[in-house]
């Protein structure tokens, strides 16, 4: 019962963070940002199947409008929806589909926006504040320190993320370290691999990790990236797809 309750809480209160900005990866942030006054609409869809050794399933959707405030700073306004199916102790499954969270996030690229002017190593900082729709006294804080390194057609990225959920009388913190490599296959197509994990620092939810191949395709104003995550720990399959269209 305690496990089911914990899973229900995890599914309903702590869905994944929204990611903003163009990325070549499924679960990792990239370090690209839009040019000043650029506008983009993005969609993220992810699944986490059979987490924690149970038949808990979750599909999470986020839509966000992004705007380039400067050539190095972009803002995103994400809206998050979450569908979850949580196995109960009596063998039944309880499903829910909810408007989970909305907020604002900023991404600051600590290098020129133009790749030709940027050094090979590009850091990016991301900060987000989100309001929980269901738990009205809950606020989510997200932070990511991302670094990408470009060597010709190959890019490597490390993303050190952290999430904190703060509510009256409760607090949850987890780390989200991840890393990936992406290689240019054609002028518009990249392929690679990545590993992503969520490490809980308390007993509210359990940790899990996934790894797998990713692919990214850009064409004009449109781009799409996806990763098929195979479970390494406490999850069976965790695919994630992101796409964006610029205006």
């Amino acid at each position, binding site marked *: 019962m305690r496990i089911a309750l914990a899973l229900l809480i995890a599914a309903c209160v702590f869905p994944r963070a929204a990611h903003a900005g163009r990325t070549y990866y499924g679960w990792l942030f990239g370090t690209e940002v*839009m*040019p*000043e*006054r*650029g506008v983009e609409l993005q969609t993220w869809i992810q699944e986490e199947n059979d987490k924690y050794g149970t038949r808990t399933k979750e599909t999470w959707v986020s839509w966000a409008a992004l705007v380039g405030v400067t050539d190095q700073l972009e803002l995103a306004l994400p809206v998050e929806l979450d569908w979850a199916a949580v196995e109960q102790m009596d063998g039944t499954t309880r499903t829910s589909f909810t408007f989970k969270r909305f907020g604002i996030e900023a991404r600051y690229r600590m290098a020129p926006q133009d790749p030709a002017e940027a050094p090979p190593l590009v850091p990016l900082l991301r900060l987000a504040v989100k309001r929980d729709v269901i738990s009205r006294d809950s606020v989510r804080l997200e932070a990511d320190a991302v670094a990408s390194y470009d060597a010709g057609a190959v890019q490597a990225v490390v993303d050190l993320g952290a999430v904190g959920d703060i509510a009256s009388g409760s607090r949850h913190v987890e780390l989200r370290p991840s890393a990936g490599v992406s290689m240019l296959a054609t002028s518009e197509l990249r392929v690679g691999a990545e590993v992503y994990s969520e490490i809980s620092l308390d007993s509210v939810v359990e940790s899990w990790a996934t790894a797998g191949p990713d692919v990214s395709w850009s064409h004009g*104003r449109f781009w799409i990236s996806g990763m098929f995550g195979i479970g390494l720990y406490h999850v069976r399959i965790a695919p994630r797809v992101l796409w964006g269209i610029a205006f």
Partner: protein
Amino acid sequence: MRALAIAAAVALAGPVAAQPGGRVVGTVKFLEADGGPASAADVIVYVTGFNEPPTDNVTVIAQKGRRFVPDLVAITVGEKVAFPNLDPFLHNVFSQSVPRKFDLGSFKRGETKEKQFPEAGVVDVYCNIHPEMAATILILPNRRHVVAAADGKFAIDGVPPGDWTVYAYARRATKPAIASVTVKSGAEAMIDLEIVRGPEPAHLNKYGEKYKDGGQVYH
């Protein structure tokens, strides 16, 4: 063709010894496609075959009256170009040219953005908002380039002694004029060139799509 001409010149080029330079003078005849005369003030004449370091100069291409002014400039590899917006509305500056792809975003009146050009070649720049705006930047291996006078006369000073190639280039030229020249220290080398103006080629927006009016050809 345009980019190849400059790229090949850079590949073969090398620094030159400090000797008293010579002068390349001549006339460039600029003709419309129907054979009528065009103002040669739209023509840049340059010498390739040797490298020189860039200056600290920042060349300006203004955005004024929904046009890039001037719409053709020549700079030395490593120099910068500034793009001030002098119009009372937003402009964008972007390029999809291989030597230097960039997107300066949209910026308003009074704002200026700069871009450095570290590789030789021909870079066409456009505005993603106003398709009639087009300009070309020649990124050259040295500083030996001039704008011809309206009557076609030009003079390029300080050219090191040697055998070089001279080009005359205009934005809408069907192809650049090319000639070989031998420069001797303290002497003048005469050369005449002729180029023909063609239509403004259609271009796509920064996403590789036709502009909303269907890809009209802009002059």
